[in-house]
């Protein structure tokens, strides 16, 4: 367990000393979400209609930006080798990496979403559901993304391949995440969508560290 904490702490410390990497993806999210109302125009009904989808796609792309870096630095400097040789299971250590990635690239989006949602004239309830759906959904993005990042590690042009590999797998999270806000807006209630989102997050939390660790071992063999 102390190894888990140590890895999370190390990744957070590294991010604090190299802030631009975290800020880039957060800033990207803010800019994308801010550009849409400007492009679409001040049509409140239209904005409310497209808001959940735009904010969710923004979050999706923003978290994609930092995925390539999840294991790349550790792979390049040999830290990953040492992790694979640790008596602790690599699965647990990878879970720590994924948690650190979510804290750095997912959580800021969750916290920013209600502020950005205001530009789309979302009601207080809808903002609350949007935040909740991102809170349940962004971990899915980090978890599924970790498998893709591990599989494309060391591959030339891996970043493009990573997007092709991972974006289709994000579809369920996008459908139910944006769907939750739409359901709330249309008065149906979002609980069903949120439950499915939570279930997906749990399944991903169980399988992703294990699958990522297996993919990382393959990457290390070469």
């Amino acid at each position, binding site marked *: 367990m102390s190894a888990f904490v140590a890895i999370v702490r190390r990744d957070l410390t590294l991010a604090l000393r190299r802030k631009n990497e975290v800020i880039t993806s957060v800033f990207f999210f803010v800019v994308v979400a801010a550009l849409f109302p400007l492009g679409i125009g001040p049509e409140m009904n239209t904005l409310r209609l497209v808001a959940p989808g735009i904010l969710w796609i923004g979050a999706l792309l923003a978290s994609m930006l930092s995925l390539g870096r999840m294991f790349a630095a550790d792979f390049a*400097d040999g830290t990953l080798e040492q992790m694979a040789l640790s008596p602790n299971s690599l699965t647990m250590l990878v879970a720590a990496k994924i948690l650190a990635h979510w804290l750095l690239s997912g959580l800021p989006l969750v916290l920013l979403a209600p502020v950005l949602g205001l530009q789309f004239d979302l009601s207080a309830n809808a903002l609350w559901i949007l935040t909740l759906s991102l809170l349940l959904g962004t971990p899915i993005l980090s978890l599924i993304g970790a498998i893709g990042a591990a599989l494309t590690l060391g591959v030339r042009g891996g970043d493009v391949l990573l997007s092709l590999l991972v974006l289709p797998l994000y579809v369920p999270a996008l459908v139910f995440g944006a769907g939750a806000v739409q359901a709330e807006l249309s008065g149906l209630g979002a609980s069903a969508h949120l439950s499915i989102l939570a279930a997906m997050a749990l399944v991903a939390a169980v399988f992703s560290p294990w699958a990522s660790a297996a993919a990382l071992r393959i990457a290390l*063999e070469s």
Partner: protein
Amino acid sequence: MFSVSNLSCSRGGKRLFSGVSFTLQPGQWLHLEGDNGVGKTSLLRLACGLSALEEGEMMWNHQPVVQNSEAFRANLAYLGHQLALKEDLTPLENLRADAAVAGRHLTTEEALQALAQLGLRGREHLPVKVLSQGQKRRTALARLLVRAAKLWILDEPFVALDNAAQNALTQIINGHLANQGMVLLTSHQAVSLSGMGFSYRLAA
């Protein structure tokens, strides 16, 4: 006791080596020699379990490594070509994070002592990126002192070290051997280690 028998390795369809067998008893060292590209690093990566075994067997304390990999890894310290140092962290932070990943709790005093032993006193709180190549390698070597591992697998540990550091490392390895440790290393330089040891020449 660490023994391997009948190891082989192929790279890109080409057979690098086959039928490699040796046994390391506590207190013994093995110096792996061979020309560039003969497969020394591949053999070391195979021995520490980073590459999958194609054929052959590895035993740790009479148990197959494959089935007891956790017990084996708890006793293993590997230093490869990549130093596994984070440039933005200080040597002290690197050492402590590394020990935690290896499942060891390390006090600040222990870490400082290990760094001092490798002549890094006064550099403990500088980011690794401002250190010289040799100082980086010393930081990575300090890891050996804090791991409490029985088996050290070292890939070219003497590279980029000045004379003082080479002597310090030789002393550290000798101390480890005197402590019933085992060392498997490659080096293009002649090594003068104490205790029982032998050279193994890897040839294509």
